[in-house]
C-alpha cells in the first residue's frame, strides 16, 4: 500500500516575476519510474469549500519533479500545495509544502533594457514580461539629474521613442517593473547612457 512509497520531500516554490514553479525531491525506486501528481488549495477552498483540493491536470502522473503552477496561482491570497508519488497502483501519502505561498512574495527582477540613440532620437527596447507587468522609465540629460522625466508603459512594443535629444548631448535611462496585482515594483535596472549625434560646439 501507500507505506511502501514515501511521500515526496523538500517541496518548495521558486517564484520569479510572477512565474511560480513547485519543485520537490525525486522518490527513488530502483528500476522503476515513479510519477507524481500535484494539487493546490486556495484560501477560498480552505475557508468556503470544506478544505477541498484541486488537481493540476498538467502535473498529474508526471515524471518531472517540477510543476508550473502559475495559471492556478491567479489571486493574491494564500495557497497550499501538495504532491504525491505514484507507482502503478501504489500511491504515497501527500507531501504538503510547509506554510503557504502568496504570489505577493514573488521576486521581481529589473527589466532587460536596451537604450539606443538614433540620430537625435532617444529610443529604448524592453523585453516583454507578460500582461501583469508595467514599466516605469526614468530618463534625463546627463548633468541635469534634477530634471528627471518619467514614462509609464503598460504594453511593450518593440522599440519606444522616449525623447528628441539635443545634438551631441548625453542622455541616461533606467527602468523598473511594476505589478499592479500585487502592488509591488522591482529595483531599477542599471543606468544606461547614450550620446546624440551631432557636435555640441555648434551653438549660435
Amino acid at each position, binding site marked *: 500500500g501507500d507505506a511502501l512509497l514515501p511521500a515526496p520531500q523538500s517541496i518548495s516554490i521558486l517564484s520569479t516575476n510572477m512565474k511560480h514553479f513547485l519543485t520537490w525531491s525525486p522518490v527513488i525506486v530502483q528500476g522503476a519510474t515513479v510519477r507524481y501528481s500535484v494539487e493546490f488549495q486556495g484560501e477560498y477552498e480552505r475557508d468556503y469549500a470544506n478544505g477541498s483540493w484541486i488537481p493540476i491536470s498538467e502535473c498529474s502522473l508526471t515524471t518531472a519533479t517540477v510543476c508550473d503552477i502559475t495559471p492556478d496561482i491567479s*489571486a493574491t491570497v494564500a495557497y497550499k500545495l501538495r504532491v504525491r508519488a505514484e507507482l502503478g497502483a501504489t500511491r504515497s501519502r501527500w507531501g504538503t509544502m510547509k506554510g503557504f505561498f502568496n504570489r505577493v512574495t514573488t521576486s521581481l527582477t529589473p527589466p532587460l533594457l536596451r537604450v539606443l540613440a538614433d540620430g537625435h532620437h532617444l529610443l529604448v527596447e524592453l523585453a516583454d514580461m507578460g500582461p501583469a507587468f508595467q514599466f516605469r522609465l526614468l530618463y534625463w540629460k546627463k548633468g541635469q539629474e534634477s530634471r528627471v522625466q518619467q514614462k509609464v508603459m503598460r504594453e511593450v512594443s518593440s522599440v519606444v521613442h522616449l525623447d528628441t535629444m539635443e545634438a551631441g548631448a548625453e542622455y541616461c535611462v533606467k527602468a523598473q517593473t511594476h505589478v499592479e496585482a500585487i502592488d509591488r515594483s522591482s529595483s531599477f535596472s542599471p543606468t544606461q547612457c547614450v550620446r546624440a549625434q551631432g557636435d555640441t560646439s555648434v551653438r549660435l
Partner: protein
Amino acid sequence: LSMTEIRAGFSAIKANIQSRDPIRSRSILSHPHSLHKVKSSDRCCITHHLFTFYVDKVFKHCRTEDSFVNRKISSIANSFLGARRRLGQCREQNNCVCGEESTEKFKQILANYEGLNVTSAAMKSLGELDILLDWMEKS
C-alpha cells in the same frame, strides 16, 4: 480593483458555464432593474454585497466534472476573496455606506437567486459574472 484577472478567468469558461444554464428567461443580477440604475453613492456597498454573495452562495455550488472549469472557478473565487478584502478596507474607513437603494437592490438579487433551485441559481449567477464586471468597470 483590477478585474483583469477575474475577467480573463471568466472569459475562459463563460461559454461552458452559460451552456449549463437552461433558464434563459430569468436573470439574477438584472431583474427587474439593471445594476446600472444603482446610485454611485451606493456602488461600493452593492459591490461588497455581491462579492460576499458570490463567495458565500455561488461558487461552492458550481463544481463541475471539468477539471479546467473547476480550476478557473477556483481562480475567480480566490480573486473575489482578495478583491473583497480590499473593499473591506473601504468599509472600515466608512467609505462604503449602504443606502436604502442598495439594500433593496441586493434583497431583489437574493430573491431572484432563491427563486431557483440552488445549482441552477448558482450556475446562472456565475454565467452572469460579465454583467457584474461590465458594471464595475463602466464607472
